[in-house]
């Protein structure tokens, strides 16, 4: 048939295509980083407030005119904006994020300290959210209309809970009233429980809604019926078919989830007094600490690009229906 003539040597072209695809992603990623850097550079400079003042110990500092001038000269803030911009780009291209105005130490170092705690928090939250969402989806597909309604209600309500409110309630119940979990411990596993749950619960509600829909759809699909006709048990169908399908939208939402986790981390890290990117982002904006804001923004943009690429790859591997485009 005509298909056999269309068969060309597959392997090399496929490899070439993947490399091209990855290269494209890389270029796209670099563009995103450049644009983010540019947006932050001009955006922050439009905010009222003198960066030199931020350098000299923040607003309200009674720095003398000479001190301010010295700071401006030292950080090159006395030059035309476009020159500053060019220099910043050059520095960034060389991997130099500059020195934080408020913390007085290199941004790279600051980020190096802040990334691990946020990464741990966010990835655990994502994991827990996934587990909760899947558990709820499985539970509700297995146990009838009423259970499904309860699960759906739970999901919708958890997705509608503000982080900071949830955090407060959790602290009140589990730390103040029951005394089971510490509210602020940064070094113990127990200290992670409350912050992780605060971040995970709303996300789980959101993921759960999507996953459960897909799972229900898979349960009703022709291939599930086909498997039943082959003698597959309901558990088998769930494990071998539906769960995979339910996982797909979760994967494609992970980029979005990351963004929501970082925004949530601002609140959670403030309340649970955890060091991390979210909290420093907040204080950096307040302090007009341009290098640090740029650093955090670039880092999260890079993380976003990477996560999107990875989830793309995973999705492609998991789902052959997505053709390279």
């Amino acid at each position: 048939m005509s298909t056999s003539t269309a068969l060309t040597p597959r392997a090399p072209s496929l490899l070439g295509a993947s490399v091209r695809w990855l290269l494209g992603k890389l270029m796209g990623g670099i563009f995103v980083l450049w644009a983010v850097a540019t947006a932050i550079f001009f955006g922050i400079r439009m905010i009222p407030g003198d960066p030199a003042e931020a350098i000299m110990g923040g607003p309200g500092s009674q720095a003398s005119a000479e001190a301010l001038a010295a700071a401006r000269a030292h950080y090159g803030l006395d030059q035309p904006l476009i020159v500053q911009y060019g220099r910043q780009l050059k520095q960034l291209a060389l991997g130099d994020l500059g020195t934080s105005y408020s913390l007085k130490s290199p941004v790279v170092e600051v980020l190096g300290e802040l990334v691990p705690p946020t990464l741990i928090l966010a990835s655990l939250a994502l994991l827990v959210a996934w587990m909760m969402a899947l558990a709820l989806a499985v539970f509700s597909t297995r146990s009838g209309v009423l259970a499904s309604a309860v699960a759906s209600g739970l999901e919708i309500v958890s997705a509608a809970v503000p982080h900071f409110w949830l955090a407060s309630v959790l602290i009140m119940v589990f730390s103040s009233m029951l005394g089971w979990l510490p509210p602020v411990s940064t070094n113990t596993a127990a200290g992670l429980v409350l912050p992780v749950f605060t971040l995970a619960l709303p996300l789980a509600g959101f993921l759960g809604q999507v996953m459960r829909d897909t799972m229900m759809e898979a349960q009703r699909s022709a291939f599930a019926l086909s498997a039943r006709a082959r003698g597959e048990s309901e558990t088998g169908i769930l494990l071998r078919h539906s769960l995979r399908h339910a996982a797909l939208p979760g994967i494609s939402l992970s980029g979005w989830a990351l963004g929501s986790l970082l925004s949530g981390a601002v609140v959670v890290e403030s309340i649970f007094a955890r060091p991390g990117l979210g909290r420093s982002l907040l204080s950096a904006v307040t302090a007009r600490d341009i290098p640090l804001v740029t650093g955090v923004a670039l880092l999260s943009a890079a993380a976003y690009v990477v996560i999107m690429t990875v989830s793309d790859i995973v999705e492609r591997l998991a789902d052959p229906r997505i053709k390279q485009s």
Partner: protein
Amino acid sequence: TTENSADDGTPVTGGTLVYASGDAEPSCLDPHVGGNYPQALVASQYLETLYTKDAEGKLIPWLAEDSTVSEDGLTRSVKIRDGISFTDGTALDAAAVKANFEHLLDPNTASSTGYLALGKIASMTAVDARTLELKLKTPDNSLLESFSMPWVAIESPTALKRSQEENCAAPVGTGAFKIASWKKQEAVNLVRNEGYVRPVASSTHEGPAYLDAITWRFIPDAATRYAALQSGEVQVIDNAQPDAIATATKTATLKHLDAPRPGASNRIELNSSKAPFNDPKTREAFVHAVNVNASIDSLFFGTAKRSYSPLSSVEPLAYSDDSLFDYDPAKAAELLDAAGWTERDTEGYRIKDGQRFSLTFPVSTSQSIPAEQSIFEQMQATAKDSGIEIKINLLDLSSWYGDLAKNNYNLVSAPYTKVGPSVLSILFHSDSTIPAPSGYFANHSQVKNPALDALLTTAGSTKDEAERKDLYTKAQKLVLEGYYLLPLYDQQNHFLYSDKLKNVGATTAVASPLFFDAWLSN
């Protein structure tokens, strides 16, 4: 109420105290740089000052031994104590103190509080190893009080020679503790200074401190902080909320330390430089139109006392007059009518020449605790009955300073901590209306009164203690009766701590706690 009971048992050495601060984490641990209260709090643990105040509020020498001033008040010599060394081994001497003052006065250091405190120094010489001689531009009778502030604390000159970045991360002092490490956004870790020799006179023991270490954590959220204290994860918290204090006092395992800050009282300043408050009648009317007492009663659960003075109740020279500030809407109405604000618009606000009586009130969310914001809201509600509109703008600190610099306010509440009545000059002298290059100025009510200026200048330079008191009293009367400010209560400085922590209560001159005598029972 300061609990300082002697029957706490025999002190035990050892243990790590975890302190949770609600203040913003300093960006620099050296209080010379910038100079705000959070820095003073933590720096009091590892830095010491030339002078300090004892439990009765009397100024006593600490790292200094003695000090004399010349007859014309223009030369001050300070005798430095012998046998003390910094934790890096450098010895404390006159040259070291000089190096510190030079550091403070160097524009590159960007000191604000310390710089102002030493502003009258013209030159200095280390006469010998233990004597430092200061030449002043004008006489300054508040210099020793200034020396008692942590922002003018003495650091190792060797350490000061390092880059600012390094010095900010780990300043070196003579205190009972020293900095071991600083994990940003998490904690400053302090360990005991084993070679510590010179505690304040009122201390109960000598030698090194009992505690092995202090973990100085930053927990900005009040509820979390209190929960951490409840769960035993931390032993001391500061910036305790009024309701938490009220609950804690009923809890056997929690104790309360109230240590009002010196300097100015917590107050609202009325910007007299622009309409409508350029008319004294309107200022007076405003003061009578708001009911501060009712708010304090309900919001502070008895933890704060109403103030009627520009100065903190711990300032011996504070003058109050409670007759000026009663809630009296009838009187307010009378005054407003007299000032020409007779008509009302559809929303019930008074108008004059088509202008609404509207007051802009920028509030910094990081400087005003929630209870204080609630007071402002309640003022807003009561003022409305008198036809006065208050617009509260919640702002982050930078934007708040921005509004002040742009003179975009009618009301403002800004704390100012300084030891001694000389804070009045900072707050009310017309010189203080001239903004620093950064736009900042301290005279928010923008009083420009030559008579007041003269009073303040003379009060600051006189050698006669009685005259000083009299002049400062007159100055305070002037600003109070001119309704330039609405005093609220003392600057809040409430600490809650676990009853496992014994012998708490010692504070510095600026009411930051000292843990030299404290110990943890198990």
